[in-house]
């Protein structure tokens, strides 16, 4: 059965201009996403793929986790979006559950509808709380599309969007001396991802995070960690930063919070930082952010995360994948020049953006959806459902092997 490709589809023009279709064709994803279940998605013609994209870390529990589907079905009857300024039991209970779920003293939540907004709030609360303006980040970051998040991110097209948020400075990643020199009395916050998924899974060393934390404390700056792509078990731990033992003042959580059924994200802050928001209520608003329906879904997702502990499966299946990829590379003749990652997020170095796209195309042909890294465009990121089975992990390896072989033959 052949799938209907997007290029031949009627009436795609409103949403997908030619450039968009071309890009999807380049990575072999030019089909309509249809049925989805567990670790897999299907195109409209019924062809099955393993979802190795997971919405950039949204579908940690796989697609349509049945209990979560039921939770949304119930929540839409019990409640609705609610008036955004209002106190609600749903918001209160999700705030409480998050405080219990995350490590350390991150007791307070600001809800957002998506990751960029959650990051923008992190930047704003850091400035508001400290009364300082400097936002320090590291090179290679990828935080989202909105104004503050974009200002901190490394992007090839960043300059196209004109002058962005001022007083943002970028430090060389992992350089302790540079960080010590840069973080000072002017610094509102140091913001980074513990694992730069889009940048060939570059991990911040525990010692580096510790140093950043210590220097921030000494200078009165806040340490902000963006776990949008690593939260809820992706790296084999509940949160990636737990490995380092560092205690962030602000933690940004992505749409994985809504389990792939409802768009909701959150910024967690300490009671100390929340004194600013208590003194300035209603200064940062989100119409969709604290949706009571979304809160119900997220509450259920947290319950499932706590019960399933998908980080354990991520660690175990991740090992299978890592060993399989290394074995594949060991045999030689593959285009994969390097591999980096943790748990169930792996980045393959293909050498060039073109080779990365070609690899994605081949992988799709062999039933695996993966996309290039957004920062390191010569890489391909693999991040399946955290509940992937051993059999599915083997399927992923088969697809990678076949894609590597294709690539070897054509190049």
């Amino acid at each position: 059965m052949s799938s209907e490709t997007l290029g031949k589809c009627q009436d795609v023009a409103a949403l997908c201009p030619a450039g968009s279709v071309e890009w999807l064709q380049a990575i072999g994803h030019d089909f309509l996403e249809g049925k989805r279940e567990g670790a897999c998605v299907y195109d409209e013609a019924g062809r099955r793929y393993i979802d190795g994209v997971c919405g950039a870390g949204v579908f940690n529990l796989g697609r349509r986790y049945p209990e979560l589907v039921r939770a949304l079905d119930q929540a839409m009857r019990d409640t609705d979006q609610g008036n955004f300024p209002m106190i609600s039991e749903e918001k209160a209970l999700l705030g409480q559950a998050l405080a219990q779920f995350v490590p350390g003293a991150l007791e307070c939540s600001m809800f957002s509808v998506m990751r960029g907004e959650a990051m923008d709030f992190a930047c704003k609360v850091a400035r508001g709380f400290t009364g300082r303006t400097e936002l320090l980040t590291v090179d290679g970051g990828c935080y989202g599309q909105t104004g503050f998040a974009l200002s901190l991110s490394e992007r090839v097209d960043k300059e196209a969007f004109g002058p962005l948020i001022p007083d943002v400075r970028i430090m060389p990643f992992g350089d302790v001396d540079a960080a010590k020199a840069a973080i000072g009395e002017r610094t509102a916050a140091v913001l980074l991802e513990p694992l730069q998924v889009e940048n060939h899974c570059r991990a911040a060393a525990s010692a580096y995070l510790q140093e950043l934390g210590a220097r921030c404390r000494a200078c009165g700056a806040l340490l902000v960690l963006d776990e949008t792509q690593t939260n809820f078990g992706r790296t084999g731990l509940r949160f990636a930063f737990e490995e380092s033992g560092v205690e962030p003042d602000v933690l940004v959580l992505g749409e994985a919070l809504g389990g792939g059924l409802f768009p909701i994200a959150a910024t967690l802050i300490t009671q100390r930082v929340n004194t600013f928001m208590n003194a300035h209520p209603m200064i940062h608003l989100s119409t969709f952010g604290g949706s009571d329906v979304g809160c119900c879904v997220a509450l259920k997702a947290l319950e499932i995360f706590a019960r399933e502990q998908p980080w354990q499966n991520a660690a175990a299946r991740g090992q299978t994948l890592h060993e399989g990829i290394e074995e594949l590379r060991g045999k030689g003749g593959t285009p994969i020049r390097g591999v980096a990652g943790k748990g169930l997020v792996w980045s393959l170095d293909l050498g060039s953006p073109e080779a990365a796209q070609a690899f994605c195309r081949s992988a799709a042909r062999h039933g695996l959806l993966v996309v290039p890294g957004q920062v390191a465009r010569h890489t391909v990121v693999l991040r399946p459902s955290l509940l992937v089975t051993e059999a599915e992990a083997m399927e992923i390896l088969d697809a990678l092997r076949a894609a590597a072989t294709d690539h070897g033959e054509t190049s």
Partner: protein
Amino acid sequence: MNKALEQGGRTAPAEKRRIEEIFGRHINRGQMKYLKAGHLDVFETDRSGRGFTDPVSGRRFFDCFTSAGCFNVSRHNPVVMQALEEALKSWDLGSYHLASVPKLALARKLAALAPGDLEGVLFAAGGGDAVDCALKLARGATGRAEILSTVKAYHGHTGFALSANGKEHYRHCFEPLMPGFSFVPFNDLEAIREKASKDTAAIILEPVQGEAGIFPATDEYLRGLRALCDELGIVLIFDEIQTGFGRTGKLFASEHSGVVPDVMTVAKSLGGGLYPNAAVVYRKTPVLAEFVNRNPGFHTSYGGGSDLGCQVSLRLLEYIEEKRLWENAAAMGRVLQEALSGIQHENPKIVRAVRGLGLMVGIEYCHEFMGPMMADALAKHGVFAAYSGNAPQVMRFMMPITVTAAEMDAIIQAIHGSVRDMKTLLPLALTAVKVPGVLKLLNSERVQTVLFGAVRRIEDVTAFLSKKGEGG
């Protein structure tokens, strides 16, 4: 123990306090104090039709705030519910980068309904995200940096949107924001002509300024902006996040003037009050189309344009179209505005102005402190209406556009009753404001929070004592 409260509702006051304690500890304590000052600290249960029930008092409220225009088609509209219920049988958020039947269908529908040749669609997750997307599109496509926004404008809280917000209140704690943004007085064509140039990437405005206190743009102003943008190659952006989908008596507010912008942002009611969704709709002018074509992933949205959201939005738009709900908004808006004008005429010391378009109506009181007082009085009459935190003298009425004539009549009666109630308190306040400094004090948000909170406690004690007297 206040037995009337216990019997009237399903949530005991003690239970409410328990939830408030959790909310205060894990969300925001300041927000609770703020809401309590205006009697807005009610929980919303039985969300249906044009309102909700306070589970403590059992009192039914007309929702005249609708989360700033999210519940255009009522709370828990069965059509919207059914759309989500059905979508939930097969869909989820969907992969952010893949096309799907629901996404393409909604994009086609938006392109078909949007005015003129607005026919390209980019999805976003919320209003701020949509505005950020629109401003990135304008800067990216034109290669220019300058953005002209309007004084008192409200566009959202994300980085670009906040930079375009024309109110210090939302900005001052977070500056410096993006360079290149400047602000011109709303409805002043001369002022904007002076500022606009070939360095201007975009002019962004709300066709009816909402949060600023309901100021509709004049047709001449919008036509003048269109001509100015055409002359200088500027991208004209209409933020229809609050005004869209029937709110102002037309499907989109821009239809009143017939001016078609280059870019239009929509959000809020697009989600049907149930499931978040937002979009940027743009004209495929060479400069805009080429930019999107060359940079298809320039504003990826992970939570917006979801398959579930698109199914809900699509059914919602079909429903609004089938019922021609904008016509009801226009008719009911006229009734409300006439009634409010009458109240203004009778109470010139309380109401300074009434403004609006369709069911986006504002009352401006003579003093800032009257906003919270009136919210309080209205709450007692079963009307939930919000005053703006940074312009508390203006109260917005944005009830569902499905409101019936009988309901509108009841709302108007409640407003009459509230004004009468306020008049009994007013001689005291108006005498006090003649004392130097008192007006400033009364108008201070913090003083209001404390003062109205205290007044409320006194009222509660009085109510408690009188009930006790009756019971004993």
